[in-house]
């Protein structure tokens, strides 16, 4: 070798440095050494488990001459051995030693190996024998003195022709194995060997399954296996997610990955580009590779021979000539009828995105991981349709049916103007359909028929699903929620039917609101996803079709929520009252509709008759035997107290018309009739039975049975509730008691200040009187805090409580003159009042003597019903 440092004149093609003349072999020394430093085996030597020594192996296999360690991999160690008898060379594969100790593994190994040994194919590495020896499970295989695809790729890159030339042989091998019910499960370049003639042979069939079993892996540490079993980048999605359900199509996926890698030199990771974008390829290859790489195995080629067939037909037909006419391109979403018909499809607003291209002779949909090339002559059907309206109202698609590889397929394409959403999709589908038809006509092909709508997933099944999604499910959902609420709050007056009516009404209204909100949400989403055109249009559509109905739906509710409660007697508001009541039902569904407020419960035991929804109360103070009455009312129709049934058996009819309204013309017991004591119970039974009948007729009254002496108590409780900011409860109570009755209890139902005679004097009841009643009630309930509050109200009369004013206003609207005996009744009440309010000051306020009348200093001890608990 020359020692002169001259230049050879050659420049290294890799590192671009000049190569000196004395360089060994006229090669770039640096690149030579770098290449030599590159590992040729799959596993870097650092991670490599230490193999059994040749001497160990030789001792374990005396029948063979062990020539060398030929390879180390995750699946074990491969030795090159020569049979001492016939001199034949083989590859001896030793599986990880730790496994051979597991009886279950050994059994499975033998079963699998027996199957593998039966595989005889020129493109499959043959298994000559198998067994166990000296603690090793081994396979004796055909020895291939070549390179695997990974090494071959490193030697020099595969050109497309070479790659495609490999496909038929690989497919043959896979098809053969699949026909024998053997899956490979770990197709990757490392497992595809090229023999010295360049013929591919697939190695390690079924080994992945053997080693992939968890039970056997439990015995192995990572270092023992060297690497993870199975190679995630080459594994089909279902192989990772549901390893048990893997079929032969997983091998087709892996083959697709290998093809992609051979063609492009890269792995198809993430959103990978089409092979034809990475290498000079016939674009039709993209379709074959993309289909093999489909995430859903149904979309892949269904057999290895189909892949072979497609590749071969590619070679036999010339590539499509370049487009002669201007092509058309749109951003596009694609889905399939099968997907649309599934439950998932109903919610899929934005399926695969990609671009749609109409070139001369073909229609191409390409997304980062899908590519469909449909030549126009293969199109067998073309239609317009609409995506399910549940989340995509009114968005159209072009359905294209075509024949590919002997199968009829259908794609639903939604061309749109940007990738940011479907909001601008309107109209484009129609344009595309026309364009495709024109292109077909221009190509001299017969007109394409429309597709049967049922085949587009618009059959009855889809409609049923849509219906279920749009109506039944939300209704069931809302009803379930309301029912749970109902269970939690126990009692709803009016019985089961009314409860159900409330629930269903809540459900329906809730559902309408829900749908309006969902639509709004979807459209707002579209709006923000599509930034470019049509903003104003989308905005308008949102306003007109979503926001406006929502406001319209909420308007009555908001209106009645803010409006002071009108008397249900007012005929002008009766329709409004109905509406208000409906909303009140919804509003108070969780607010214990119809349940007596705690302040009322203090007055006695209450119970509900479940058949009629009658709430009755047997309070009856012993000192007040004659005050026990029945008061009937129908809370949600705004009618009033109808009759008073005294404990002594007499029934007093208070409000004729209203009573008839409730009982639909049923005559009530005649006024003033005196019942014998034992008839009282019978009367109650009769009323309850009547209630049940009415309940069965679908118009359940909630009947309230209460002592008449408590009528004003109820009225005041309503006042309390109103003051506490619970107007709905006040309204409810007022409804329950009846306005007239309340008014009557306090002085005849006329003007708020009433004059009456008492013990030879005339008095006028003032607002302070109302407060006085409150004090009385507080005293009655033993509620000191409430008493003090009422007293302070009384002292500050100069500053009237606005909330009270409202009640007063309401009170003033009740009709005067309905109760001829008001004064008489009030006298009784007044006596109670005087007894209840011990303070002289209060008395002075409560009773304002009309000037000119003699002062009444006589107290009516006989009226004292009970002792105030102060």
């Amino acid at each position, binding site marked *: 070798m020359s020692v002169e440092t001259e*230049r050879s004149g050659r420049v290294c093609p890799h590192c671009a440095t000049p190569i*000196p003349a004395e360089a060994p*072999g006229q090669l770039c020394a640096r690149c030579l*050494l770098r290449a030599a430093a590159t590992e*040729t085996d799959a596993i870097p030597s650092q991670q490599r488990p230490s193999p059994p020594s*040749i001497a160990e192996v030789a001792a374990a296999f005396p029948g063979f001459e062990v020539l060398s360690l*030929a390879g180390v991999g995750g699946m074990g160690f491969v030795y090159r051995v020569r049979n001492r008898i016939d001199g034949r060379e083989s590859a001896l594969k030793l599986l990880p030693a730790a496994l051979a100790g597991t009886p279950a593994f050994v059994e499975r190994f033998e079963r699998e190996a027996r199957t593998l040994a039966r595989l005889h194919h020129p493109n499959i590495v043959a298994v000559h024998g198998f067994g166990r020896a000296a603690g090793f499970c081994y396979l004796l295989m055909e020895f291939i003195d070549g390179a695997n695809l990974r090494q071959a790729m490193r030697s020099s*890159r595969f050109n497309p022709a070479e790659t495609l030339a490999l496909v038929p042989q690989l497919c043959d091998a896979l098809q053969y194995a699949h026909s024998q019910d053997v899956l490979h499960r770990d197709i990757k370049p490392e497992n595809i060997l*090229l023999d010295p003639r360049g013929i591919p042979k697939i190695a390690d069939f079924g080994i992945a399954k053997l080693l992939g079993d968890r039970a056997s892996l439990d015995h192995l540490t990572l270092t023992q296996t060297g690497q993870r079993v199975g190679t995630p980048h080459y594994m089909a999605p279902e192989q990772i997610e549901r390893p048990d359900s893997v079929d032969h199509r997983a091998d087709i996926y892996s083959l697709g990955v290998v093809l992609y890698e051979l063609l492009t030199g890269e792995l198809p990771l993430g959103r990978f580009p089409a092979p034809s974008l990475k290498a000079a390829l016939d674009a039709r290859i993209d379709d074959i590779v993309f289909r093999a790489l489909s995430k859903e195995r149904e979309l892949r080629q269904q057999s290895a021979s189909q892949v072979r067939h497609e590749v071969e037909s590619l070679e036999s037909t010339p590539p499509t000539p370049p487009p002669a006419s201007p092509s058309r391109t749109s951003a596009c979403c694609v889905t399939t009828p099968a997907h649309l018909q599934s439950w998932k499809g109903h919610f899929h607003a934005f399926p695969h995105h990609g671009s749609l291209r109409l070139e001369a002779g073909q229609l191409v949909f390409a997304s980062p991981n899908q590519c469909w090339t449909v030549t126009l002559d293969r199109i067998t059907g073309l239609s317009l349709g609409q995506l399910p309206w549940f989340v995509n109202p009114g968005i159209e698609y072009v359905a294209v049916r075509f024949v590919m590889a002997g199968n009829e397929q259908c794609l639903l394409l939604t061309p749109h103007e940007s990738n940011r959403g479907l909001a601008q999709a309107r109209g484009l589908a129609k344009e595309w359909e026309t364009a495709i038809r024109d292109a077909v006509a221009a190509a001299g092909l017969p007109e394409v028929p429309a597709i049967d709508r049922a085949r587009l997933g618009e059959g009855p099944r889809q409609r049923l699903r849509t219906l279920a999604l749009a109506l039944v499910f939300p209704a069931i959902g809302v009803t379930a929620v309301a029912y749970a609420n109902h269970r939690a709050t126990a009692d709803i007056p009016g019985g089961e039917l009314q409860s159900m009516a409330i629930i269903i009404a809540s459900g329906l209204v809730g559902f309408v609101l829900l749908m309006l909100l969902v639509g709004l949400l979807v459209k707002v989403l579209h709006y923000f996803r599509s930034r470019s055109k049509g903003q104003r249009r989308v905005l308008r559509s949102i306003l007109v079709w979503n926001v406006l109905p929502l406001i319209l739906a909420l308007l009555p509710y908001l209106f009645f929520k803010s409006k002071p409660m009108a008397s249900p007697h007012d005929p002008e508001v009766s329709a409004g009252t109905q509406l208000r009541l409906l909303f009140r039902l919804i509003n108070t569904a969780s607010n214990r509709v119809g349940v007596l407020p705690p302040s009322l419960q203090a007055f006695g035991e209450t119970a509900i008759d479940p058949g009629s929804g009658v709430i009755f109360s047997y309070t009856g103070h012993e000192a007040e035997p004659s005050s026990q009455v029945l008061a009937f009312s129908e809370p949600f129709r705004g009618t009033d107290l109808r009759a008073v049934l005294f404990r002594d058996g007499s029934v007093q009819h208070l409000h004729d018309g209203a009573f008839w309204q409730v009982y639909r013309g049923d005559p009530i017991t005649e006024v003033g009739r005196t019942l014998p004591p034992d008839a009282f119970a019978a009367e109650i039974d009769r009323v309850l039975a009547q209630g049940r009948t009415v309940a069965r007729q679908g118009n359940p009254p909630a009947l309230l049975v209460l002592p008449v002496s408590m009528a004003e108590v109820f009225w005041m409780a309503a006042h309390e509730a109103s003051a506490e900011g619970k107007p709905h409860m006040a309204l409810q109570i007022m409804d329950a008691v009846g306005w007239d009755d309340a008014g009557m209890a306090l002085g005849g139902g006329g003007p708020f200040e009433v004059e009456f005679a008492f013990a030879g004097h005339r008095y006028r009841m003032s607002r302070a009187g109302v407060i006085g009643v409150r004090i009385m009630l507080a005293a009655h309930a033993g509620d000191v805090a409430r008493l003090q509050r009422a007293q302070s109200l009384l002292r500050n009369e100069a500053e009237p409580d606005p909330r009270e004013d409202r009640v007063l206003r309401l009170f003033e609207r009740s009709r005067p003159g309905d109760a001829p005996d008001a004064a008489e009744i009030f006298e009784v009440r007044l006596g109670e009042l005087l007894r209840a309010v011990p303070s002289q000051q209060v008395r002075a306020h409560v009773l304002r003597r009309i000037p000119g009348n003699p002062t009444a200093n006589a107290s009516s001890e006989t009226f004292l019903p009970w002792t105030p608990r102060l």
Partner: protein
Amino acid sequence: MQPDAPSPYFAPTRWSLVLRARGPSPEARTALSDLCGAYWNPVFRHLKSQGTDDDTAREWTQAFFTHVLSGDRIAQADPERGRFPSYLLVALRRFLKDRRLAETRMRRGGGIAHEPIEPGTPNEPAFPDTGSDTARFDHDWALTVIARSLDAVAADYAASGRSSVFDHLKPWLEGHAGNPTSAAQALGLSEGALKVAIHRLRRRFREAVLLEIRHTLPENEDPAAELQYLIEVLSSAGTAPSHTGPASDR
């Protein structure tokens, strides 16, 4: 997975034999003699770079190897000293120093026997060790390793009558090179078969390089690390003018 060379994993290497013997055993002498024969060139180039002419350098190289191979030198090889090239370079520096001292003394009358200097003695710094000096030596060393490996592989292919395969595929040892189709046609191989052949050639070359390196390392030393070192040496020398000469670069 099917290399056809004998396994390189367990055979004792020459330098390890020398180190193991730790004395003038015939086995070690043979091994060292082989090594010295193999790495004659780096020593020669080193001497030449010291400013001597070709003939003197050749003569000194010869003298140096005779000196190294003399019995007691082998015993001085210290297993701790590591790789053979390092040993050789240190020995060479001492040899030169002795030689110059001797010459000086000759001029002064001479005849005074010099003390042998133990390699690696810490209190005696070796010949001034400049970085470029070592790097140049190792650079030449790396080239020799490559040349020997290539020769070994070429000899293998020639032995099996496949010299033309080696000649055609040699460019692929650098990496991807040339036109595979024309090479395949020239060799009468399919392109697949060509890839296999390239792979086998590369694997053979890699083994040859590793084996060559192992021969210059103590036992159980990782040849991959030494290989990496040689690559670094070559890479840094690629920009240094020492190798191709400053004048000839542009």
